[in-house]
């Protein structure tokens, strides 16, 4: 019985559950920013765990898996930041019941620059 295969597949299973929860969050949350919260965090950890589990199952692949994990951990927050910024600039509102929106005050006084 290869114990490392079982360990790897269990990690993969946990990761895929997180991926599913992230997608569920994207589906259920009330507004764009909350969706992005769920989408970014859960999918990042889910992808990391899924890939890591497969890297443990096939330990000879671990180098490539690590590079992909590093790339995803670096790019996923950047892309969701860019998207959140664009959406806020475009005027997509926060959901009802939001407490504060300090960015709006800044954007209304901002001069467009290049």
């Amino acid at each position, binding site marked *: 019985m290869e114990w490392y295969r079982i360990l790897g597949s269990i990690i993969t299973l946990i990761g895929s559950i997180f991926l599913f929860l992230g997608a569920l969050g994207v589906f*259920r*949350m009330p507004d764009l920013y909350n969706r992005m*919260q769920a989408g970014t965090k859960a999918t990042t950890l889910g992808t990391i765990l899924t890939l890591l589990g497969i890297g443990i199952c096939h330990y000879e692949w671990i180098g490539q898996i690590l590079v992909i994990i590093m790339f995803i951990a670096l790019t996923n927050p*950047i892309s969701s930041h860019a998207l959140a910024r664009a959406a806020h600039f475009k005027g997509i509102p926060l*959901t009802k019941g*939001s*407490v*504060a929106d*300090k*960015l709006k005050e800044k954007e209304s006084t901002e001069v467009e620059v290049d």
Partner: protein
Amino acid sequence: MDRIIKVIFSTGILTLFYFIWTGTTDLYNILIIAFIALVISIIYNRSLFKPMLSPKKWIYSIWYVIFLFIEIIKANFDVARRVVSPKIPINPGIVTVKTKLKSAMGRMILANSITLTPGTLTVDIDEDILYIHWIDVTNIDEKTATEKIVANFEKYLEVIFG
């Protein structure tokens, strides 16, 4: 001189990436790739970053990665709890926090870490003020928010990118 060190460092990093990716032991392969990495580093020599050379920074980086991973796991249980509960418990808003970090790289890592940790998402950055979407706003005051959100990371990042 500074630029030459940057180019050499970046060549080394790119070759290391290639080595990790392929796991090759063929000498010709490594030589060819080192040459290509050198060409790429020379092409982008204007936008390379300063290398971190002191061992203290390396140790702190490793600690930081471990700390961040624990925070990410916490964040995920937080997200999971919010997503599966039938009446989604949120209290969102956008707040400002202030950072002490000066280097561009440090700010980027800080913003990414904030995005990955519980309940917060960086929306915009303006010099040293970060605009953060917080899923569960407890206090809209800048000082308290700074204390709650960024202080933990800054401890490490100030040393690493100091």
